[in-house]
């Protein structure tokens, strides 16, 4: 029997794979370890301590920036998911027509446009709006975050919608449901895992953003990532590691929650 060619059986494949994982996760592991350093260095281990977590917790600027980040991410994720859901409903289960591909492209464009371009464009645009309206609150950041989160929320929602049987909507209409009732009783309950995934993804993407936030924020509007960026220009202490570790934990727990929810769904069906 001649063995067919398989990438998996090439010598060194496992080694390269292990190396990749190592390079990916070793720095993160190091970061987490040094968050518990008793000393003030991020490179020399001086014993175990939780002092940097306490220090971050007592740092007024960190707490304020975190709270701001969470608020922006929560509102932006909801807005982006709402827009993405509507966009997904409008672009799936339709017969192909001229311009449909263009619509996909427009919706997903923010994924491809360099973030710095979007950032500069928003900076210029919002500075005009600020002049006209005199308003300089968090609204600009929320709007900016909502805008670039839409494609991230759109992808899982559309994937879910595509896998849904189009005849379910017809069956509901046949059974006297109005379009609004179809959406409420059939489409939305079945779409919910996709919407939830979109919401999570948008939330994490917003929480994580540096470039656009840096350009759009007014003074005193630091989010956690931009605050950390600012701190890194000065002295680097394990406090940064501690904040990052908490951040990492938050992201991981969100992903875990979503994973558990979607697995339960699958068990049901």
């Amino acid at each position, binding site marked *: 029997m001649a063995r067919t060619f398989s990438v998996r059986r090439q010598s060194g494949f496992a080694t390269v794979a292990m190396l990749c994982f190592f390079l990916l996760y070793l720095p993160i592991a190091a970061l987490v370890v040094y968050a518990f350093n008793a000393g003030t260095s991020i490179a020399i281990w001086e014993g175990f301590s939780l002092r940097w977590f306490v220090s971050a917790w007592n740092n007024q600027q960190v707490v304020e920036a975190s709270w701001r980040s969470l608020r922006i991410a929560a509102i932006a994720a909801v807005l982006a998911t709402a827009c993405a859901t509507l966009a997904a409903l409008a672009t799936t289960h339709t017969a192909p027509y001229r311009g449909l591909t263009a619509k996909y492209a427009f919706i997903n464009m923010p994924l491809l446009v360099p973030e710095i371009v979007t950032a500069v464009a928003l900076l210029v645009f919002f500075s005009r709006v600020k002049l006209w309206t005199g308003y300089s609150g968090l609204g600009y950041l929320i709007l900016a975050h909502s805008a670039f989160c839409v494609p991230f929320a759109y992808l899982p929602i559309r994937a879910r919608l595509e896998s849904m049987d189009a*005849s379910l909507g*017809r*069956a509901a*209409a046949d*059974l*006297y449901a109005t379009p609004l009732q179809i959406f409420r009783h059939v489409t939305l309950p*079945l779409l919910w895992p996709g919407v939830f995934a979109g919401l999570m993804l948008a939330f994490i993407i917003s929480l994580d953003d540096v470039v656009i936030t840096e350009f759009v924020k007014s003074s005193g509007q630091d989010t956690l990532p931009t605050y950390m960026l600012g701190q890194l220009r000065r002295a680097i202490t394990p406090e940064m590691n501690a904040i990052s570790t908490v951040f990492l934990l938050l992201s991981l727990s969100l992903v875990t929650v979503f994973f558990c929810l979607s697995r339960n769904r699958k068990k049901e*069906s």
Partner: protein
Amino acid sequence: MMAAAYESGAISLEGVMKRFGDFQAVDNVTLDIKLNEFFTLLGPSGCGKTTLLRMIAGFEMPSGGRILLDGKEISDLLPNQRPVNTVFQNYALFPHMSVAGNIGFGLKMLGRPKGEIRAAVAEMLRLVQLEGRGDSAVTQLSGGQQQRVALARALAPRPKVLLLDEPLSALDLKLRKSMQIELKRLQAETGITFVFVTHDQEEALSMSDRIAVMSHGKVRQVGSPADIYHRPADRFVADFIGETNFIEADAVSIAGGVARVRLPSGVEIPATFPAGVTPSGKVTVVIRPEHAQMVAQAGDGALRGIVGDIIYLGTDTHFHVRLDDGSPFIVRRQNATNGPSEFSPGESVGIRISDNVAQIVMNQP
């Protein structure tokens, strides 16, 4: 038995058309589907039968013509405004609802009180023999059970007409046979007009009160199963329904609504013909394989030929005979006894044709 009487409705199609771009899916169909009738739209895939059904349901708007329910035009109504329910080919059950949730969905959308919905669901579960399964998830049911839930869901709001879009095609043969009987029983018990779409001629023949045979968007013939089988109007219908022998013959005379045709062998036999045509000259005659018998003396039959393949089918045996003029002819003989056939390939035989079984068909335009 029934908590409330079912109300049945009649459908009239008047010159109904449907175009998809350049494709004429349904071409000027005029049909009357009567009250309490089990009516079947039969045809090969792409003949327009499903499109026609979808227009009655309201999922497609006709490009022309009118659809009437009990004399009132419904062509412009949305699906949720028509007292007509559909059993879908893939069932289209709501996967996030229980069996009871699915069955009660229509009544819930109509805003009926909870007590009434509960009673209707219980009655439907009994009707489709799924008592006690109301709380099950539909995804845990077998194909046959899902089929019953789909039926119950469509019947629960008591539609005037039930539309069934090839509902049995996903079931295996045994289950399909028992569901055919089940459907027939449900139709008799409820008296609701059923419009059934299928490409399976056996299914159509065994269940329907009347059948409309369709091809290329047109209705070829409407009639009872026996009409369609024994008196096909044209070559397409004769060919599509069952197995058939076509013989080119000459029409000699017409008397009393029956023609006499001269077969290639020179023998003359009587043949019926479709209403509205006067056969003359060269005609095509249809003779079903079970209406012919083989005889050992070649001179005794209306046709003569040489036995070719002999195909044993359990209940029947098919003899493929090559006639003297070279055309093929199939004779079906029921295997009433065990034992080998008395005919063997290469043998010269005569073919006798039963009385009054030949039908002249039109070659379609």
